[in-house]
């Protein structure tokens, strides 16, 4: 999940499907039977008329992918940027405020500032270093790699001098000199061999930037060597009056971590103020909202994939980076596996659906064939012959998709008030079945409400109707002004979608009308009644909430049908979990061991491919060794091992058979012996090499002092 994986993959995507491999190179080992099979099936899917398939397949998908992904990437980038800007601005304000505070206490002149002895200050609490703790609410630091660099840039643009330090600079080996050196290098842009604070001071006053604060950003405080960090803080503190340094510490987990690192005296010198970046869940919601729902661009992920991603996000690593990567992979797979995917471009760039009929690609035989195979299309319009009404189909597709996503957004607007994450809503909406939709009126909702409430605490679980039901339920107990807000949001969301839009508008007008006579009980409601009280008397509730609720349900009943019923949805929604899973999560260890056991499957040599299971000397020695190890426990006696290995190497099976049959004659024994003596050294060499290889692959552990003649197997993973 290293983000560095992303950039170098992009060139590796080349035109044809078979060349997708480098993209998956990291994970190819993990491709287990079923998934690989499925992939093969997909590859062969445009089986009719292969020749033409190739020649319209070859260039389109790549361009499509590039187009789609570039859009998505740009969108994601500025979404994340917007998420951070508010926090950054807050930090910036704080920085300047504290800088003024420092300056107010005293502005020393050049000679005073550069002199070694401390100057008296009239800050009553001695001199404290203004410090901002920036909590990046995530144990995984992957998402925030760029964050601190961005923060630095943001502060620089607002007239600060910034130095970015990381925990590597605070190593016990280099001591406080190391981090000071990096600090000076970043500020002075010059290498100093004897780093010292007075240098910084004289620089600061020479360059006449005594009206700029000096910011020192430390990415990951938890990882710093505590003693070095303490020394650093003490040293800064001696100079903070002369050189206005302000610290920004990035904390991944919680403030306790920081307190465990710093000694009490260092804590004493920090006047701390805390800031928080958005939680991964918030970011995730923002990304989903913009990428999958707002920008109604072609590509989207189906229910299985979304559920899978959701699980993976909650369970395995909660990094946005991985999610983005998954999106990218699935885009690529969709584009390269779905022959009709070139249609996506039409959906994306805004020339819309007209002129589609003119597109010769669509009139091509294979395209139509392929299209005709799609069940959704058959359901949509009974097709006569080979002519498909592309325009209507695609426009219908686009319309329904827009409707759908906007409705999801509306629901999300509701859910927001009770912290229902968009991720959950999204997955749930995808797998809503039409039947429980038409049944989905309030009393059913009310029935579900209990369950919804009961597993409200555990966000892990995703229940039928859990979130949607809860969202509906909530509609009931909103106060009037909350409703107003929601309606306004809806009004904004549903712009461009005629059907819903004016309905929302008239709801708003009703709202404004009823404002007047609702004044009196509005107060009563404004102290928000809890769900319980609401459950008792929601029927006797003001008509307004009912109206809104019923409106939303009617919308759902009309416009939301399951994705499967949308024509050509196969083109848009990527729903092949196995491929994605394979591409995303490798299991190298298991793979290595499996492959070692059946090496002949890979190097398809003539000699040992025929007799499988039996060990023959011609096999690769490392794999022989590993197969031999299988017999032992997790402690392997080196001598036994070596002897069995030698046995395998030195006598081929047929000869041994012969040995069994006839009594060995002295001369035969003799020459076999001298054959052995001849090969002994080389066998040992082979043995050692193989052992080292096994150690390097992390399957073995070399003998310890306690048990010099035993190697230990590192057995896990299989």
């Amino acid at each position, binding site marked *: 999940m290293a983000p560095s994986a992303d950039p170098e993959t992009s060139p590796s995507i080349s035109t044809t499907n078979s060349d997708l491999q480098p993209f998956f190179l990291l994970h190819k080992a993990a491709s287990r039977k079923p998934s690989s099979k499925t992939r093969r099936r997909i590859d062969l899917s445009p089986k009719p008329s292969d020749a033409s398939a190739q020649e319209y397949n070859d260039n389109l998908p790549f361009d499509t992918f590039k187009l789609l992904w570039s859009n998505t990437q740009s969108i994601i980038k500025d979404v994340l940027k917007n998420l951070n800007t508010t926090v950054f601005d807050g930090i910036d304000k704080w920085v300047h405020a504290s800088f003024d505070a420092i300056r107010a206490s005293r502005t020393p002149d050049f000679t005073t500032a550069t002199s070694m002895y401390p100057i008296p200050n009239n800050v009553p609490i001695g001199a404290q270093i203004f410090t901002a703790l920036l909590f990046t609410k995530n144990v995984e630091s992957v998402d925030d790699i760029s964050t601190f660099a961005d923060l630095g840039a943001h502060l620089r643009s607002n007239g600060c001098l910034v130095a970015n330090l990381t925990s590597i600079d605070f190593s016990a080996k280099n001591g406080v000199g190391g981090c000071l050196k990096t600090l000076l290098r970043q500020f002075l842009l010059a290498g100093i061999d004897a780093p010292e604070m007075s240098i910084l001071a004289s620089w600061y006053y020479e360059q006449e930037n005594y009206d700029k604060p000096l910011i020192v950003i430390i990415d990951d405080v938890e990882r710093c060597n505590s003693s070095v960090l303490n020394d650093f803080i003490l040293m800064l503190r*001696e100079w903070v009056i002369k050189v206005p340094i302000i610290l920004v510490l990035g904390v991944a*987990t919680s403030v306790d971590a920081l307190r465990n690192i710093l000694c009490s005296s260092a804590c004493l010198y920090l006047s701390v103020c805390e800031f928080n970046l958005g939680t*991964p869940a918030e970011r995730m919601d923002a990304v989903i909202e913009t990428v999958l729902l707002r920008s109604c661009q072609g590509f989207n992920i189906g229910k299985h994939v979304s559920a899978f991603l959701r*699980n993976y996000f909650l369970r395995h*690593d909660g990094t946005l980076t991985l999610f983005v990567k998954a999106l990218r992979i699935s885009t690529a797979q969709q584009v390269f596996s779905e022959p009709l995917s070139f249609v996506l471009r039409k959906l994306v760039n805004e020339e819309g659906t007209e002129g589609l009929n003119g597109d010769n690609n669509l009139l091509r035989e294979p395209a139509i064939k392929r299209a005709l195979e799609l069940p959704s299309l058959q359901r949509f319009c009974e097709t006569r012959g080979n002519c498909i009404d592309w325009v209507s189909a695609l426009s219908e597709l686009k319309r329904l998709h827009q409707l759908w996503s906007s409705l999801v957004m509306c629901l999300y607007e509701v859910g927001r008030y009770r912290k229902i994450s968009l991720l959950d809503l999204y997955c749930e909406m995808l797998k809503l079945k039409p039947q429980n939709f038409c049944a989905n009126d309030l009393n059913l909702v009310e029935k579900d409400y209990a369950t919804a409430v009961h597993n409200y605490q555990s966000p892990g679980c995703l229940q039928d109707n859990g979130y949607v039901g809860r969202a509906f339920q909530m509609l009931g107990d909103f106060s009037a002004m909350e409703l107003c807000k929601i309606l306004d949001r809806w009004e904004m969301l549903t712009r461009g979608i005629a059907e819903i839009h004016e309905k929302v508008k008239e709801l708003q007008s009703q709202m404004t009308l009823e404002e007047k006579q609702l004044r009196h009980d509005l107060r009563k409601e404004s102290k928000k009644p809890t769900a319980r009280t609401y459950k008792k008397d929601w029927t006797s509730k003001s008509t307004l909430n009912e109206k809104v609720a019923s409106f939303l349900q009617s919308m759902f009943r009309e416009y939301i049908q399951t994705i499967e019923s949308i024509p050509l949805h196969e083109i848009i929604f990527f729903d092949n979990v196995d491929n994605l899973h394979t591409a995303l999560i*490798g299991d190298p260890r298991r793979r290595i061991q499996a492959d070692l056991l059946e090496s002949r499957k890979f190097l398809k040599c003539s000699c040992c491919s025929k007799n499988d299971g039996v060990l023959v000397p011609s096999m690769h020695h490392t794999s022989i060794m590993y197969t031999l190890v299988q017999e032992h426990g997790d402690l392997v006696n080196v001598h036994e091992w070596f002897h069995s290995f030698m046995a395998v190497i030195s006598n081929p099976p047929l000869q041994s058979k012969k040995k069994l049959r006839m009594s060995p004659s002295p001369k035969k024994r003799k020459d076999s012996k001298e054959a052995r003596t001849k090969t002994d050294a080389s066998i040992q060499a082979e043995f050692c090499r193989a052992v080292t290889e096994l150690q390097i692959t992390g399957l073995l552990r070399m003998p310890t002092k306690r048990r010099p003649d035993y190697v230990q197997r590192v057995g896990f993973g299989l």
Partner: protein
Amino acid sequence: MAKDESPQVSRRTTRASLNSTPNSKAPQEHSKATNPSRPLTIKDLVFRGKSINLDELINSFPGRRAQILELVQFLGPLNSPMIPLFVYGGASTGKTSTVLYMFRHLKRPFIYCSCVSCYSPSILFESILNQILLHRKNESGGYLSAKRCERPSDFVNSLGEALTALIDSLKGNMRKSSPYGRMVYLVFDHLELVRQWDKSDSIISLLFNLYTLLKIPEVGLIFISRVSLDTFQSDTGFVEPFPVYFPDYTEDDLHQIFMSNQANPKLYSSFLDLVLRPFYRITRRVDELSTAFSPLFKKYCEPLGDLVAVPNEDMKRKLFSHLQPFISLSLNETFTISSQPLLKDRNLRKSVFKKPGVCETLDEIDFHMSTSAKYLLISAFLASRNPATLDASLFDSTGGTDNRKKKRKVSEKSIDQKEAKEQEILMKGPGTFPLERLLAIHQCITSVGEYSLDDEELQNGELGADGSDSGSMSDILLQLSSLCSANFITKGGSCPLEGSTRYRSIVSEDVVLKVARSLKFPLSKYLYRR
């Protein structure tokens, strides 16, 4: 400046600012700063700022009269030679600022270097030489020191030369009757840090023997340290410098110190009457007290309309009842964090305590962690806490369904070991464990833990299933690395190829409890309770 400058210093400077020393200087300071290349003169070795007479000096340091007088006597009148002085006393007892202000009073050239800023011998040497040679590191000079010297021998040689040169020029000045005299004083601050520099204590004995090495009577050495002389061991010892002792402030001294430079003395004294006594039992350090007081005083003033009014008795009583809860709160707190107003949701935790009891208030962990990482963390915690011998009984293959009984049996069996075990855990802290053990425990736990998640399993069928166990190995190793980087688990240094690295979970128990709670994981069932 160690924590040594204390509020009374501020009083001093504010008085100085009243007769407009620093502030009036401010404009022409900048003009001076614009041409920083002004060469340093001997004048720059004298404390800048207006000179003060003895009374001002004494007044500006409440409770330090005796020490100041003693120091002034030891330094003696102009040009009088002295034996090395050793100024020692607890942290933040005004050692450094007293000495500095004494030089401000005496107006004699001195050279100061604190062993905090000069964190290594060579840097210490160079900064001393730079000051004596009136050298200034600047850009034109490539920020280089006047002399590179690594070895003590070079240092002593060049120091001797530089000092004689300086003293000669001072004598030359004296002839044209400039007031500085011919003595030069070297002040070494934070000497206690030098002990950690090298094991052989060669630097310490070098510094203490510097006077006899130099053989220059015009040099006065002043060492400032937080610890007394007897903690500076050296095998063959040294000629002891003359000790001058700064005791910690008494309660009355502290009262004076805090009363000085107050806008509304009456109000503040009524405030001090409330807080000073209880806090005095905890710490006597001025800086710690003032960090504790300043927020409290804000709280204290909250009910007041105007801060200039002198509070009457019942007003005081009201303020007292208003302040009372906060006092006991901040008595038990060492590290305050103010949160920004623009983060509304987090205002509930304004200050954080180490006391676990208080940590319970915010119940869920406030940072994101994936489920498997949580399980891994828990298993690491268990691996560190539980004795390895009990794993078999605690985690049986049935996933700890009936290990209540087993555990009890174990505890009965080893009732006597318990004390030793407890003591050991108390002493050694979390134990280390190899990777295999961690993985084994993790397997057991997750196999149990699936119960809590299985509604999700049936919800999304096979996905959840292979989402949880597929590729678990590579995945878990990744999780482990990220936990290590988050400093929840430390890794014993060893070559990765060897693979026999041992891990240790250093996460605090309440964090793990929170995690377990968020998973509904029955931690106590698996924890070997003593």
